[in-house]
């Protein structure tokens, strides 16, 4: 890295660092908020670490501790890939300060490379939380030498690079293709969604290939799957061999290949960087509007409509906010086509699971996807510099948040209803149970909406540089998403277990009551926060 690159990277890091704001702001309230955000973030890192240690202890208890390094590499690689795919548009391309940076004497490849390294450094605490935690678990069972500890930590720094580069390259290809279209934003969104869906289904495609006899062994268990993945994705194997066998060659391979790919990729990206960004950032005004009859909307509906326009205007926002909804719709359609039983067989890799016992979990399975992200968790922060518009208008905060919540309900409830109906029809769920599941689903959506709004307001941040900071990395979203996903996963298991003993209708009614109470409490909290 040359001096200019270091200058740019430092500026990117400092300019988005809350520590810098803490140091220079005189606003005590702001300082407190920053401290709270850091505490919250450390709590989330601790959660990830606890989960990783437990996973490793599970491996050790089952006598499979040798698979832990490969598993660590797999988890970090998957996280790095998913984190980056959602961020390329907004960080690597189409970012706010593009004009300012491009007018300064930086090579295009320097800007792109620094933006990538910025993404990497920002996500590193997540990856290292997994790595350190799994190292602790590995250390307890494998008793490696001190050198291996060091080796593990150093190589962990390189594990995320290749998946991040792969995701960036895909982002680059998507940006390159969409920049050639008139409606490049729409095309960008569609291709990104298509890619995300492809990525999610890739696991099943690969497994299908194995089952079709194209690979000699089938995936018998988790350890076998990880071993298999190490063979397909070489860096995983390099890391595993480096730390379990102390292989210097494998360690060097990981470092050299990651660094070489970085240099090659940003040389390629740099060549068409200006061209892509010019196309993505420039839009000609058509100037063909003819005055037509205008419609009057209620205030709450007008705000909800504004939220809708905000979402469809941003590829980053829509791909993050609607990914769960799109997956839910696909699940619904797929269930209708291939049948509930077969779908369960695919998901559980033909495990001997009676699909009937999963019926009471249908609303929670649907909610896992539909409620994966609530727009309300980031929409208060997304007002950003435009906050003055709603602040200067005669709109009560309560009404503003109600509009935001209405939009999330409009987005999630129809998708939830469609997917629940598809699953219930396919699984031949009795009509009365189907109705109860639909009501439970609605109550869960209401909870998701209101709880998301609580998180969004409590962790509201308007001084962001890039919308990815609040959509993807915002504490509001993290506080909403992570606990929500973990709790739903536990609830799915719980409801299946209880469903064996309690009538499904009673179970649905109990969950409905709990969800409704939680939704109501969250809504009241939103109203209370709106008064502050």
């Amino acid at each position, binding site marked *: 890295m040359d*001096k200019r690159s270091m200058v740019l990277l430092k*500026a990117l890091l400092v300019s988005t660092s809350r520590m810098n*704001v803490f140091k220079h702001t005189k606003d005590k309230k702001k300082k407190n908020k920053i401290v709270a955000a850091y505490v919250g973030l450390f709590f989330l890192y601790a959660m990830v670490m606890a989960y990783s240690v437990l996973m490793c202890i599970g491996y050790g208890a089952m006598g499979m501790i040798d698979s832990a390094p490969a598993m660590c590499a797999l988890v970090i690689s998957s996280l790095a890939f998913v984190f980056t795919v959602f961020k390329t548009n907004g960080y690597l391309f189409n970012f706010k300060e593009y004009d300012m940076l491009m*007018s300064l004497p*930086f*090579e295009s490849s320097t800007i792109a490379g620094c933006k990538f390294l910025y993404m990497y450094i920002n996500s590193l605490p997540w990856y290292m939380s997994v790595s350190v935690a799994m190292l602790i678990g590995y250390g307890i069972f494998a008793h490696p030498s001190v050198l291996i500890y060091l080796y593990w930590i150093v190589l962990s720094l390189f594990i995320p690079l290749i998946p991040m580069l792969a995701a960036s390259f895909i982002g680059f290809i998507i940006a390159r293709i969409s920049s050639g279209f008139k409606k490049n934003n729409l095309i960008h969104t569609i291709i990104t969604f298509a890619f995300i869906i492809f990525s999610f289904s890739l696991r099943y495609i690969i497994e299908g290939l194995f089952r079709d006899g194209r690979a000699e062994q089938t995936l018998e268990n988790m350890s076998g799957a990880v071993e298999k993945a190490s063979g397909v994705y070489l860096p995983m194997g390099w890391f595993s061999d480096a730390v379990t066998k102390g292989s210097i060659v494998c360690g060097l391979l990981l470092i050299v290949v990651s660094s070489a790919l970085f240099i090659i990729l940003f040389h390629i990206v740099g060549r068409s960087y200006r061209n892509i960004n010019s196309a993505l950032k420039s*839009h000609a005004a058509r100037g063909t509007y003819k005055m037509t009859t205008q419609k009057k909307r209620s205030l709450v509906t007008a705000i909800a409509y504004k939220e809708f326009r905000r979402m469809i205007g941003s590829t980053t926002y829509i791909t993050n906010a609607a990914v769960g909804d799109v997956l839910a719709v696909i699940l619904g359609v797929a269930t209708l086509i291939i049948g509930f039983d077969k779908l369960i067989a695919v998901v559980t890799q033909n495990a001997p699971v009676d699909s009937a016992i999963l019926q009471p979990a249908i609303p929670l399975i649907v909610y896992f996807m539909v409620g994966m992200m609530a727009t309300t968790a980031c929409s208060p922060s997304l007002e950003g510099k435009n906050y003055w518009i709603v602040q200067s208008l005669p709109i009560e905060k309560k009404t503003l948040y109600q509009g935001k919540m209405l939009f999330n309900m409009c987005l999630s409830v129809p998708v939830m209803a469609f997917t629940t109906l598809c699953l219930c029809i396919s699984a031949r769920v009795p009509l009365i149970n189907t109705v109860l599941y639909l009501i439970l689903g609605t109550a869960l959506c209401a909870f998701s909406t209101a709880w998301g709004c609580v998180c969004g307001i409590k962790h509201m941040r308007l*001084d962001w540089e890039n919308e990815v900071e609040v959509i993807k990395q915002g504490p509001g979203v993290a506080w909403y998403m992570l606990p929500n996903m973990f709790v739903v996963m536990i609830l799915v298991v719980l409801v299946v277990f209880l469903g064996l003993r309690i009538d499904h209708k009673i179970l649905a009614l109990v969950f409905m009551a709990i969800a409704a109470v939680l939704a109501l409490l969250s809504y009241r909290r939103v109203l209370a926060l709106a008064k502050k």
Partner: protein
Amino acid sequence: MLEIKNYSKSYDGGKKAADNVTLTVESGDIYGFIGHNGAGKSTTIRAVVGVLDFTEGEIFIDGHSVKDEPMECKKVTAYIPDNPDLYENLTGIQYLNFVSDVFDISAQEREEKIKKYADLFEITDALGDLISSYSHGMKQKVAIISALIHDPKLLVLDEPFVGLDPKATFTLKEIMHEMCNRGTAIFFSTHVLDVAEKLCNKVAIIKKGKIIASGTMEELTEGQSLEEAFLEADNG
């Protein structure tokens, strides 16, 4: 210093935002670029400073092609956009140091320049505060200082007077004169015709992406005011 030759920029759908624009800004010129909103001023300016890609025509800065040798061009150019997107979570002084580092300006020189211009724009006291706490005018002042600290050969400004207080406007005009006397070429867009008339020695009028009139102030106005000349060219 700046030579724009047959530059055209088409957006998707074939609409031309700039159509065969040709003009030359010599060292020591203060060149005004005037036109309606959406006439193509910013599109041209963004291409000049290497932000916007273009396919037709050529732009040269100090003899270097913006397309083929962007780094050489950027090293001698400074750009102040109409709505500067500065890093809001940096302090004013952190931002100015960032730009100084980019241009490799020595500690002593940057200290002198920052002090000189910050004092002139009366913003020295605020340099330790976060840019997010600045008003639009203060941000504009920081952007101007950042453009001046490396002594550019070409200064490109997009609506530089918007948001500046009267004293800062006067200061900027004085600085522009001083730079022009030192041989710097200045190319700027504006809607304020009075300012352009008093400040510029050359002017170009752009309408729907095409240059409809250009030349020295005397050639263009022919004894009229610039406002009258602009309206005449615009209606004709």
